[in-house]
């Protein structure tokens, strides 16, 4: 699928079609990861992250695509995988040199920011389904508290509000723990 069509689909909110088309770029990433001490499952994780990052970037106001989608995804995956290998303390041999020319200029900053958001995502995922459901309804679907309460079987608006607070409070605790652990293992970022 052409880049323009992918962007148009995401613009229309037809994300499933867009993502399915984007998976055409997966084999190249799989080759990269497997050639550098990774497995197919590693490649899948990395590619999934890259798609999430790409989607969020496209949805940002004022977004302009400065390279082809393929280049962008590959660059993101390469960086994510390099970071992952560093975490695993692998020695990098024969790592493909960064292709400075086609790498988006602000990629490092973007990935650092998205890395934090990913920790927040992990913290939220560890909370369990009900909290996730509640927060999605509240923040993304913008459902009124009353509606959320009845959908989740809570006593009323007040109960939904309190539950939301507790979920967010717990998520914050776990998020802080993840972020602090991340800093400890990466003194260079501290």
């Amino acid at each position: 699928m052409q880049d323009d069509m992918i962007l148009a689909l995401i613009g229309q909110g037809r994300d499933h079609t867009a993502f399915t088309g984007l998976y055409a770029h997966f084999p190249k990433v799989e080759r990269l990861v497997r050639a550098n001490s990774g497995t197919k499952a590693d490649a899948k994780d990395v590619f999934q992250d890259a798609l999430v990052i790409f989607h969020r970037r496209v949805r940002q106001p004022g977004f302009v695509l400065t390279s082809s989608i393929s280049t962008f995804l590959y660059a993101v995956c390469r960086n994510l995988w390099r970071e992952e290998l560093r975490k695993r303390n692998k020695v990098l041999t024969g790592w493909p040199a960064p292709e400075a020319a086609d790498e988006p200029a602000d990629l490092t900053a973007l990935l650092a920011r998205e890395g934090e958001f990913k920790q927040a995502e992990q913290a939220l995922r560890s909370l369990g389904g009900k909290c996730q459901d509640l927060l999605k309804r509240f923040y993304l679907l913008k459902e009124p508290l009353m509606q959320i309460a009845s959908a989740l079987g809570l006593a009323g608006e007040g109960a939904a509000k309190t539950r939301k607070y507790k979920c967010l409070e717990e998520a914050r605790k776990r998020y802080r723990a993840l972020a602090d652990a991340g800093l400890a293992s990466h003194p260079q970022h501290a």
Partner: protein
Amino acid sequence: MRDGLHLMELVDRYLDGTLDPGERQAFEERLRTHAELRELLDDQRALREGVERLAVRALVVKAHSGWNWGKWKPFIGGAAITAAVVTGTVWSMHAGERSGKTVEVVPPPIDTLAADRTIPVPPAEAAPAYVITDTIIDTVYQVIRRIERVHPGGPVHEGDSASQRTTSAAATKAGSIMQGTEREATGDPRPLRSSGSMPAYPGGFQELHRYLQRSIQQPDGAACSGTLIVAFTVDEKGHVQDPHVVKGLGNACDQEALRVVRAMPDWIPAQDKDGPVPGEVSMPFVFEFR
């Protein structure tokens, strides 16, 4: 806990931009002097982003299984995409204006295949709901307008197909495109704020997809890729009338789309409170014939 809850709500409203100017100023003043509040703001912002990532990741995971399946699927007629039917968001009708006008609808933009590669970003609050189906040809009927019944003494519009056609084309050009509601997927008559329903394909989206999947064939030797839109009227009896290409690819695929629309079974006509009325439908096709 009350304080914590209150503070968290304040941060949410700050991030949503819904504090009034006085509150906002006070909040920013407090941010300058209280490090804990800055931390709370940062964390809460990250968590809100995290919630969004959760939702996006769920879609990615779903698409991955779709892709895995699609890879091995024998390509029918060379068309190869998997489709998501987006259902969406808003019906806004100017109901009550019953002077023989057509019902107006709200526009998510469709024609976003802009050459400059920038795309309009839909407002965040229009979070779509999804009905996912796997099909070959991706199409969703998007513009549906009901022609309002003319009351005795009012201007005559009903049955005036020339004027319907003009308004339809104009509306489509202006991006007056409405996406369906989730109920279409089940074939329910569409609920309107006023009474009645919009034209619907018998059996809903699923059946429409099945029909298209069976019917669409690659025109001989034609390679086409892109979005084309066919508009037509569904009359009071449900017959498909006057199909025409609103936005074409300029080749044999236009003819193929028209052929398939013409051969389509009868629809369920739109209803207003007095019975069936004509309605207009605009149906986009995404072609990937190589």
